[in-house]
């Protein structure tokens, strides 16, 4: 092979990231540079709320996960970050806009997930259940066996969408090796 430099190994985010990575959300004195409001105008008609919980192998909600969203449809490049330790139900909650379809792909949002108990972060995606036609023909979704595909598809609500992430079990979320 070529002379590649060896990748720096990953380590867990651990249980105590909040005052470093999401300090404002958790009420520490250091100011966050990013939060869960990914759009400037939270009251704009196109603003949606995406929420959900992260579950462990015993079906319990995880209260020390860090969820990051990244979406890029060419027009809007949006990044958000939220820890699951401040909502009373341990949910993640983001305000964003739904990305557009690019080149006929189904619209989606990238999810990067960190938590105590993960030595290496995981990647998943959020697709949308009101895009049935595009979802059906999407190249990436079609890599996933049909009975697991719904783990990636958020359900429409009155204010946006909800999606839960299951680390293990029958409903285990599809994770990607990017």
């Amino acid at each position: 092979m070529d002379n590649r430099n060896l990748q720096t190994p990953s380590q867990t985010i651990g249980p105590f990231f909040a005052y470093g990575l999401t300090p404002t959300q958790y009420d520490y004195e250091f100011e966050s540079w990013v939060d869960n409001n990914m759009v400037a105008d939270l009251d704009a008609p196109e603003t949606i709320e995406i929420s959900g919980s992260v579950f462990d192998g015993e079906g319990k909600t995880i209260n020390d996960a860090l969820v990051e969203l990244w979406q890029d449809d060419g027009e809007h490049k949006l990044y958000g970050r939220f820890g699951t330790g401040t909502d009373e139900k341990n949910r993640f909650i983001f305000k964003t806009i739904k990305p557009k379809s690019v080149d006929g792909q189904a619209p989606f949002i990238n999810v990067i997930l960190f938590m105590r108990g993960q030595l290496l972060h995981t990647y998943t995606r959020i697709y949308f259940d009101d895009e049935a036609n595009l979802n059906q023909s999407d190249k990436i979704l079609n890599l996933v066996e049909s009975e697991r595909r719904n783990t990636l598809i958020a359900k429409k609500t009155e204010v946006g969408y909800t999606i839960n992430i299951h680390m293990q079990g029958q409903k285990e979320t599809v994770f990607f090796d990017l």
Partner: protein
Amino acid sequence: MSDIIQTGFDREIQPNYLYEGYKSTLLRAPTKPLIMPKKADLTLSGPVFKDFELGALDSDLTKNAVKNGEPLGERIVVHGKVTNEKGHPIPYTLLEIWQANSSGRYIHKADQHNAPLDPNFSGAGRCMTDAEGNYKFYTIKPGAYSWGNHPNAWRPNHIHFSLFGGDITSRLITQMYFPGDPLLEFDPMVQSIPLKGRDLLISKFDLALTEPDFALGFRFDIVLRGHHATPFENQ
């Protein structure tokens, strides 16, 4: 910008999701095979930090939380270079850091370790790489602390790092350790790393970086996944 060959996680270097010695992985590691899209079907991008404005004391943890005096402990200065796997520097990327104080206590409200807080130290900071990919921050050497993973479990001294690089596949959260720490060989986090990669997280003491009468110097270089240059390399 011809270097858009993508590489995945190097499985000879990176820890697995499941590592039984680290008990919290048991209920949190994915159990089903990951889906691997063709790289050609991915449009990769990520947050950029060209115009990011750091606070004046963000990169000096010895000063950024001072209330009524200086924090206790050994002052250190940590330098390093952030590159991609081809050795190309990654300029203007954000590093976020957090750590315990010199007694081994985090300010996090959930940390119940019986060691004193330091009113003048928070342990959180940020810095950016410069045009050549170099970064530097000042802090206090973190202490070891016990945790509940197994009887008499102690974490070696470490600083948590978070980095982005050019796109979401180069995202990295890791921990920097210190040379000669006797706890390294007992630590499941460190031992989860395959042997080939284990030493890569141990910083090097560097007398040339040491600032006389002020702070001990350590060097910790970081290699982010992929060959992507950042979007501003040609600017």
